[in-house]
């Protein structure tokens, strides 16, 4: 047999693709939330979630289950048999009642069943690679992948601000530190550094298992999923912030939550609009204060502004010099925080002035509306959705965070197994393998760490070499 034949035979195997899942609708409190699953496991997942074998191309109204047959939602399930589907693979769509928490629980369950989160733009990519999208649309697909990966990266970055990020980074540092010892013990057995046998590894591993459990718990409490998706309304008194708030939320559906703590009540309110938390901060309240408790409130308000995904600067268009008022607010904000969040200027009461032309000369995105006549309100809502990244790709803060939580859970699974291999089998190479996998999972959050990076750290930490 010739070499060519050998090569041919080993490469003709059909390699399976992962089954992937993602949200196909903008997350938030919309009317319908669609979860899309694509790949060989899709129909089995459909059975696991709905309890029924789904017939191709037939819409069925049924219950969606979590583990233990717990019903979490009701909705329509659709099964598209390959190649007659969007991606050309088996596809299942679950159309439920929206609601970020329910959707998140369902996605989590689906991932548990052996499916992975889709990369940004991956459904479209598969559709294209499987000839389901024609050439003319190809450029758009490339743009989509590009844009959504960039956006996912931004979202990921955003959700990684503050405490949570510090914890993940510390965890990765701990993990790298432990791997240094384990890998050095394996690759340099003659260097008198057999940490596997001296109890150090077990001690460090216990610490990691416990910090990862803590992180996981925090993540599961939903803190990460809910925090941070913030729009802050700022402006002078009587610019119309409260009216805007009411219009945006709709009088009946507005959930105006009082933040506990008297001081912060004065400065900050928050509501949900289409499932997006909105913080309203009255900049007039952000004055210098001698009162200790109020100071804390003010500090927190500034933090909220600093971490906002979007700042809506509400300006009264009927002011004598609206542009000067706007500038006043910006100057005030800039004097307190280092970098302003992305900014949208909203001129309110536009029904009361003739022309808005003169107000258009500004660098920031500018919108004109009236809370009284409702002109421009739908444009504002659309604008908010756009800048929150709630596009149809389903990638944005929501998916980015689900990915992070998945990564942490999976890493935790690996560190548990590492502990088992260490204490039960004393199998250093399997401990090393589990730790490597754990770090791979976390590197989805914190960036790649190659074998060569690890070796570099070993050589700078230990004096190695004959």
């Amino acid at each position, binding site marked *: 047999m010739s070499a060519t034949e050998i090569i041919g035979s080993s490469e003709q195997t059909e390699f399976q693709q992962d089954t992937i899942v993602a949200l196909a609708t903008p997350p938030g409190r919309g009317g319908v939330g669609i979860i899309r699953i694509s790949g060989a496991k899709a129909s089995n997942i459909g059975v696991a979630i709905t309890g029924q074998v789904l017939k191709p191309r037939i819409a069925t109204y049924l219950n969606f289950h979590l583990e233990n047959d717990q019903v979490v939602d009701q909705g329509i399930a659709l099964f598209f048999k390959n190649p007659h589907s969007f991606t050309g693979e088996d596809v299942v769509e679950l159309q439920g009642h929206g609601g970020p928490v329910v959707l998140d629980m369902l996605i989590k369950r689906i991932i548990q069943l052996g499916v992975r989160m889709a990369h*940004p733009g991956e459904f479209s990519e598969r559709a294209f690679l499987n000839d389901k999208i024609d050439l003319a649309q*190809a450029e758009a697909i490339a743009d989509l992948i590009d844009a959504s*990966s960039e956006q996912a990266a931004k979202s990921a970055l955003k959700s990684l601000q503050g405490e949570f990020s510090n914890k993940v980074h510390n965890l990765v540092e701990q993990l790298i530190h432990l791997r240094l010892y384990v890998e050095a013990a394996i690759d340099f057995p*003659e260097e008198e550094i057999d940490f596997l046998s001296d109890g150090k590894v077990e001690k460090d591993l216990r610490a990691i298992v416990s910090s990862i459990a803590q992180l996981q718990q925090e993540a599961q409490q939903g803190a990460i999923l809910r925090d941070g998706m913030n729009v802050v309304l700022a402006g002078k008194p009587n610019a119309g912030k409260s009216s805007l708030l009411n219009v945006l939320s709709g009088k009946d559906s507005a959930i105006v939550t009082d933040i506990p703590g008297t001081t912060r009540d004065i400065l900050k309110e928050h509501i949900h609009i289409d499932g997006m938390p909105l913080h309203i901060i009255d900049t007039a309240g952000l004055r210098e204060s001698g009162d200790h408790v109020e100071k804390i409130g003010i500090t927190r308000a500034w933090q909220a502004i600093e971490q906002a995904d979007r700042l809506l600067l509400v300006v009264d268009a009927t002011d004598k010099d609206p542009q000067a008022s706007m500038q006043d607010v910006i100057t005030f904000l800039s004097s307190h925080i280092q970098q302003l969040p992305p900014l949208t200027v909203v001129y309110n009461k536009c029904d009361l002035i003739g022309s808005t032309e003169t107000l258009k000369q500004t660098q920031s995105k500018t919108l004109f509306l009236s809370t009284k006549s409702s002109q421009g309100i739908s444009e504002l809502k659309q604008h908010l959705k756009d800048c929150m990244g709630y596009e149809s790709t389903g990638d944005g803060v929501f998916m980015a965070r689900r990915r992070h939580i998945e990564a942490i859970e999976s890493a935790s699974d690996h560190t548990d197994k590492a502990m088992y291999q260490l204490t039960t089998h004393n199998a250093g190479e399997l401990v090393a393998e589990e730790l490597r996998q754990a770090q791979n999972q976390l590197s989805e959050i914190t960036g790649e760490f190659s074998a060569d990076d690890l070796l*570099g750290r070993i050589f700078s930490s230990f*004096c190695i070499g004959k």
Partner: protein
Amino acid sequence: MRFAEQFDVIVIGGGHAGTEAALAAARMGSSTLLLTHNIETLGQMSCNPAIGGIGKGHLVKEVDALGGIMARAIDKGGIQFRTLNASKGPAVRATRAQADRALYKAAVREALENQPNLKIFQQAADDLIIENDRVVGVKTQMGLDFSAKTVVLTTGTFLGGVIHIGMQNQSGGRAGDPPSIALADRLRELPFRVDRLKTGTPPRIDAKSINFEGLEAQPGDYPTPVFSFTGSRQDHPKQIDCWITHTNNQTHDVIRSGLDRSPMYSGNIEGIGPRYCPSIEDKIMRFADKSSHQIFIEPEGLNTHEVYPNGISTSLPFDVQLAFVRSIKGFENAFITRPGYAIEYDFFDPRDLKRSLETKFINGLFFAGQINGTTGYEEAAAQGLLAGLNASLQAQEKEAWSPRRDEAYMGVLVDDLITSGTKEPYRMFTSRAEYRLLLREDNADARLTETGRKLGLVDDHRWSVFSDKMEAIAAENTRLNKSFVQAGSSQAKALDQFIEKPLSREARLMDLLKRPELDYQKLMSVEGVGPGVKDEQVALQVEVQAKYAGYISRQQDEINRSLRYENAPLPVDLDYSDINGLSAEVMQKLQDSRPETVGQASRISGVTPAAISLMLVYLKKRNLLRKSA
């Protein structure tokens, strides 16, 4: 003068890469010429007298599984054998042997001289004959022209070699050998990226001048581990001990006082040395808090008194070398037989190579060994074998072959080199292999010998040894899967001595073997279950496969997922600036590396999954996307 005979393959260089390359090409039936500047140095170990070690032993077994000479030569030349990491799992266990240089060299020379299709000629190569971007032959120092379809270059540290001892330096290929200046100049004219590396050796010492009293002896393992899958303990010569001593504060003081005359610290050496094999002066400067460093005293052979003090490689001036050596316990009256030195040499950026180790710019020209920025005999041998077999395949107009990362450490080695290049002399470590649990020494034959047979590298003898072993493993696996121990039976009672709780129901033998408390020997000691297979290699395979079963299938899943576009070829002339959405950084990395396949591109550091998606879409759009190469 033009030499009349036409060769399929010419190999330049007779080190560990060159000899494996020449042997491999000849085994595959190609008429092969080995050109060396000195026949007496064929198979010479120019650095420390040892073969194997963690990661390296793995490579040796793979070379052996493909019919190479290294393992058989060290079985004949090894004077102290050990299994490293014996207390750890089988995946990271590795064999290492001290060599008697003369015996090792003789074994290599014997294999070369008896290899059909192989001719050896002593003459330095000065030039490559290149026509239309294809190498067609070699010109030697005396102006002799040899024609060939392919040429494998394995020139080690000889290209532009400069030897440093203290502030003195001179041209040299290694101590006592001339460098290849003409060839280096010629190669620098070709469009390859060239850079400098550095490596070093310790001073050698006359054992008669060493006081071994009070030094720690380091005996080999008994029974001695065997390197070659076709070898046996009977191949091993007499076994002797190594010794261990240590540097001390006084040693470090002497070294510090001589640093002003160190070529490393005065800036005379620009080449980058390996971080994992630092000179003693580097160790003392970088780890100042360490008051002592280990030195392994390795005998150079059974019939010589020279020893190799491993751990004190240095390029300090000779007077400083002598002073610090004599400050070490046991070396108080040491007589240095050869001074330590550092050598700087040219290497070619391996990103200019294909997976077959053929250069991207000159067709038919292959590079192997230190010329590609690696260090170590084993790394060299692995590349030599690959380059030789691919040169032969090309001469026979067949498609190239190179193992993947999940198939062999050889695959990891080549993929790392051609994908990421290297900044320091590249050495194999098991932590470089993501599929470490699959790439074991013990199964190198199972991973590679069948392919080697198809390629023509494996002779009948090895093939029959291999086939018998595989059949025995399969038979024993079947037996263990089909046989059960009944709860309460006499076998179950006999098992109680090993396991915590008595069996409550019948248990499959294979499942029992997977238990942490049991191993193959214990299980087989039970009457009615044993005696099992006699061949310890077969028993080891059965046991390891059982113990690792879960991990093996997990890694296999990982591999299957990664393979979809692994071999989807990327056009050589692909203009990455044409692909929409790639960041400038990613684009630059891809242009520098010019990966051959999408899989290779995905492993370049900084190339994101999104970038790969963009590439796939781009290729698909232009109808360039194929799932298999």
